[in-house]
Every structure is written in C-alpha cells, then in structure tokens.
C-alpha cells in the first residue's frame, strides 16, 4: 500500500517560499482573530467545558438521540435515510435526484460529501453539481479539493483566482481585485441558483428534540440554494446530532469564534420541515464513524469542524492542507485518517511535533496531541516505517545498556570532530541538510562528576 509522504509534500509546498509564508501568516491571522474573539467571552473555558459535556453526553447516548431525531424529523414531514458508507450515501442521493428528474444541483459546503466523493459520482451520472460556497467553488473550478475545512481555497492567492475566473467566468485576466472577483462569482452563482433543480447541503447540527437540521454558512448560500428547488437533500455524519436547541446555543457560540473569530456565523439556518409542496430529505451517514465510537479514538467524534486546530498548527500552516492527502487535514484530520487507514496514513500522526497547541484551541477540548501520540503506536506497525522502527529499536537497546551507550558516545566524541565535512554532511544525514550537527562536549557530565567527587 502506498503511504502518504507528508514530509515530501511539505517540502514541495515550502519550495515556494513567498507562498508558504503568506499561507502561514494568513492562517496565523485567523488564529489571532480567534484568540481575540475567545478572549472577549469571560466564560470561555466554561463554555468549552459545556460543549465538551454536550457532545460527550450525546455520544454516550447516540442511539437514543439518533432515533429521537429520526422520529421527530419524520413527524415534521422530513424524510430520513440511513447510509452505512459513502457508496450508500451516493446511491441514495443519486436515487432521490433521479426520482425528482434533477439535472442541475447546487450544493452548499459539506465535508461529508467530499469524504464520500459525491460530486464525482453525480457528475459521472450526468448531473451538474455546483459548489456554491465561494472558496469551494474556486477549488471546484480548479479541479482540486479543499485544503481547509473552513477556508477551502486558503492555499490559493488572488492572482491564481483571477486567472481561474478569467478562464471559466470570462473576467479580465489581470484584474485580481477581490471585490471585482467576488461580484463575478456572485453573478455566476446567482445564475446557478436560478437554474437548480435540487439543493444539497451539509448539516452542522441536527436537533433531536426538535427534529430539524441546522446549517451554518457565512455567505447564505445554503439558503439561496434551497429557496427555489423543490428538493433539499441534507447529508450528515451520524455524530452531528445534539440533544436540543439549548445545547445548540452552547455550540454556536463556540463554532464561529473558534473558526474565524466571528461572534456568530453570518447565517445559522434552521430547517425544521419541508417547504410547502417540497421535499426535505436527511441522509444520516456512518462511513466508519460507529467503528470510531468503539475505538480508543472515540473522542474525535465530538469535533464540530471549526478548523481552529488547523489554524493553530505550525505544521499545517507551513505544509498546506493538501500535504495530508485527506478530506479533513491538520491535527483532527490526521487522527481521523490514521484511525481509518493506519497503513496508508501512517506518516500523518508524525506530521506533528506534539506541541499541543491544537488541544488548547479546540472548542471541544479534544486532547488532539494525545490522540496523535496514541495513533503513532499503530502507525509504527506500518510497513512504511520498517526502517525507522528498526533504527529506533536499535537505539532502545543502546539506551538500555548505559555502558555500551557510553562506549559508543566515547567513540563518537573521538571521531566526529575529525570527520571530513562531506563525510558528515551528505544526503544520508537528514538533520545536516539544513543544519549544522552539534559536536559532543570534550568531557561528558558524568566524567565531570567523577572528577568532582575525587576533588
């Protein structure tokens, strides 16, 4: 099985220094906005504890809340479907669109449908799918995937967007004025909204007690998309359910502040029943989630996908979301991917210095760095790390035998300073590619201690 080469991807991303710096600074700016927004809420830490409690409680009674949601939603006239995996989700959605005779679909941002490859599936069946979140539309036009769960096109700079828009939307080639580009995108998307036969949205929260779903967007595109067509399909991971609107209040206070530093997402849309004459269908997807629930990584199911852990992660900021080769990148994405396919994603738990900054920004207080630490145990078994495993085991033997270790170090002390430079610095010495190698001190501490004792 091919292993994702995160280190190689990161090195490639870093080659364009200006771009990498811009990426880092743009996301650090968002992190700082988040800090300011969080600091403006005196009870921030209590709020995080409350959010953690809400989601943990829901997970502990997940079956109950999902069934409650299902029955309440049905009572509201919503159709509820269940999908075991991505394939089933795609089939259900394609089936509903077929029944409805839908050819053109507008979709608001949903990482779940990304995860399941819905766009490609529908397009192969002759259905036009237009992503209507601006960032998402940009990556769609570029034939790429989102590189961030909240800021899907953060890896692209405005001149790239200008080139893309001039190719696809006929804008002036060299005009990269954001206002001009946004207007062009808006005009283009308005047309898509008007022509759409159906709308697909994600779900940020599903309210069990009320039997409705909540979608948060900053551009209002979920509302625009669902306004005209008679069919609205909302796709949700089964962990999105929360007990009731009261619990939602805690989570929405945290979501936007953690994500972008806004006090609240611009549009928090509640869909409680189908519109007159229309259909509202909710597809509840498992796709590996119930497996996670049984595992040691269960806690990651409390994630509300705010993206704060990415913005705070010094590795993510400098390697870009695509370096992870996952739907959800960054700290949370690495845990999710490694839990699902530890072999293929073995490098991701190691694309982390265990700095733990992600733990502190996470509104759900997920102990992300400990989750990554735990994932390393399984990842290390992967064939991708055969060499690393062997050298570390060798080091372990050495460390267990201090006399042998000291003998080796004494030899290093004698030899290292005398080595010709090209013996020490070559492609085998990865540390030395960009750094000078430290030299052992003339006398180790233990020798100093012996001499001290002797007086």
């Amino acid at each position: 099985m091919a292993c994702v080469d995160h280190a190689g991807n990161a090195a490639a991303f870093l080659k364009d220094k200006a771009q990498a710096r811009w990426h880092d600074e743009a996301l650090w700016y968002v992190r700082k906005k988040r800090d300011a927004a969080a600091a403006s809420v005196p009870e921030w830490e209590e709020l995080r504890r409350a959010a953690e409690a809400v989601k943990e409680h829901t997970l502990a009674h997940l079956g109950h809340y999902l069934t409650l949601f299902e029955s309440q939603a049905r009572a509201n006239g919503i159709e509820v479907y269940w999908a075991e995996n991505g394939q089933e989700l795609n089939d259900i959605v394609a089936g509903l669109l077929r029944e409805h005779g839908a050819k053109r679909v507008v979709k608001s941002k949903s990482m779940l449908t990304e995860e399941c490859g819905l766009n490609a599936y529908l397009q192969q069946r002759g259905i036009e799918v237009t992503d209507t979140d601006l960032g998402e539309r940009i990556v769609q036009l570029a034939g790429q995937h989102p590189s961030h769960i909240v800021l899907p096109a953060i890896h692209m700079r405005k001149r790239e967007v200008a080139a893309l828009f001039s190719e696809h939307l006929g804008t002036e080639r060299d005009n990269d004025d954001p206002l001009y580009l946004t207007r062009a995108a808006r005009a283009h998307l308005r047309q898509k909204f008007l022509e759409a036969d159906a709308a697909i949205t994600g779900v940020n929260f599903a309210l069990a007690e009320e039997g409705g779903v909540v979608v948060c967007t900053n551009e209002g595109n979920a509302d625009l998309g669902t306004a005209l067509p008679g069919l609205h399909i909302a796709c949700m991971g089964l962990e999105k359910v929360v007990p009731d609107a009261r619990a939602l209040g805690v989570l929405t206070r945290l979501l936007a502040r953690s994500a972008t530093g806004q006090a609240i997402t611009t549009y928090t849309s509640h869909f409680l029943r189908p519109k007159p004459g229309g259909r509202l269908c909710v597809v509840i997807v498992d796709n590996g989630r119930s497996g996670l629930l049984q595992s040691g990584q269960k806690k990651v199911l409390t994630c509300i996908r705010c993206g704060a852990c990415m913005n705070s992660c010094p590795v993510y900021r400098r390697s870009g979301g695509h370096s992870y080769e996952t739907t959800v990148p960054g700290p949370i994405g690495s845990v999710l991917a490694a839990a699902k396919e530890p072999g293929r994603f073995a490098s991701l738990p190691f694309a982390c210095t265990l700095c733990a900054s992600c733990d502190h920004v996470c509104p759900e207080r997920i102990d992300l760095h400990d989750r990554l630490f735990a994932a390393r145990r399984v990842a290390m078994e992967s064939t991708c790390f055969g060499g690393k495993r062997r050298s570390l085991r060798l080091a372990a033997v050495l460390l267990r035998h201090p006399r042998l270790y000291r003998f080796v170090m004494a030899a290093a002390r004698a030899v290292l300073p005398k080595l010709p430079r090209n013996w020490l610095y070559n492609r085998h010495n990865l540390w030395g590619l960009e750094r000078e190698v430290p030299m052992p001190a003339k006398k180790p501490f233990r020798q100093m201690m012996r001499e001290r004792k002797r007086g």
Partner: protein
Amino acid sequence: MKRIGLFVPCYIDDFYPEAALSTLEILEAHGFDVAYPENQSCCGQPLFNNGLPEDARLLAERFVKLFGAFDYVVAPSSSCIATVKYRYREVLPQKEAEALGKRVYELFEFLHDVVGVERLRLPHPFPHRVGLHQSCHGLRELGLGCPSETFVKGCGDKVRRVLEKVEGIDVVMPSRDECCGFGGTFSVQEHALSARMGRDRIADHTANGVEVITGVDMSCLMHMQGLAKRDGIPLRFVHAAQILAGRAE
C-alpha cells in the same frame, strides 16, 4: 536536608554538560543534597513519542529504580520531565507512576514551586537582551508559561519569573509562542518543515534584537543553533540554567 536526584537527559550528558553542571550548582546553592546516580540512562522519550512504549518500558523501570527513593527528581529538560510525568502511566503500575510523577520537576518549575521566587539566590548578573524560547512541553504540558491560545487564569509564566530575578537581564518574548520545529525525530523525518519552523522562530527573535536565545530544553536550542550556525547568524544559545549559574558568558 531534602535529597534531590539529578536526572541528566542523555544528550545533555554528552553534548551540553554545562547545562547539567549549572543545574547541579544551582540546586546545591539552594541548600539541597543532590545526588547523581551514575547508572542512569534516557527517560525513553524518543521511544514513547515514536509509538514504541513497550521498548521504553525498561527505561521507565530503570528510572523508578534509580530515582524512586529521592524526595525530588530534577532535570534541566521539560520534555523529559513531561515524559516521566505523563507517559510513564502507560507502562508502569498506575500508583507507582503517579507517585513518581508528583516528585519530578523541571529545574525552573522546581525553583518556582518548591524553592519559591522570593527565596532564590542568583548572584550572577547577566546584562544581556535575551530571547526566551518556550518549549512546547514546558509551556503546555508542564504549564511553565502561559500559552497565547488559552485563557486560564493564574497560569504559570514560571521560567520568565525566575529568569527575571537575574540582575541586568532583559527577557524578550517573541511575537509568537509557537513550536520551534524540533520535535525529536520530527526534525529528521520532516526535515524541510522542521528547518522552516526553526528559521521562523529565529527570525522572530532576531527581529527583537536579542543577542542570546535561551530556554529550558536544550534540544530545541540545539536545533535552532544548528540552523543559525548554518545561516551565519551570530546568536548565542544557552540553557537557562547556565544563566542562573553564571556559566553563560
């Protein structure tokens, strides 16, 4: 008199003995009986952090055997102490790990929490502009500082408080308190990324016009030192213990 077991992380022993010697001298100057068990070895951090806890078990057991009987165990390294405190639980009987965890301290944490900032005796002035690098395990696992992303009242800032007791010192914090990119084997496996992170940290400090960069984890300093040296940046890197002990000039 309280007895302290001095734990000297493996790479400090061979590469940065001055940091260990400084630690010893500071502890003795504050009236402790400090012993250095000869047969000590690595705490096991590289093995734990690379998902090989089973291979680290024997090192953890050795640690308990050598250091179990002291009133305190002190080391000039926050990441090693964090390993003993939080990772040993994975391989040792819980009671044993917990009892040990309560008695292990990073040097500055010890000076701050046990000796007390008011009672510090630091007779060596250090009239320099010094950039303080907060290493992540110290900052976020041991709480030796206040990470910029949290809003917990009464957080530590212990290293800085102790350092600022040194006469003439001007401690300057960088604009970001983020990771330097060392991360143990991360620095090798993700060498390009690691180097980028380290260079960013160095640039942040040099923008403040510091002459010296210090911290409580020599490993982070070693990484940044290697980069600065390669880039011809005239910066000195010293362990914070050396500043306290007058061994940084």
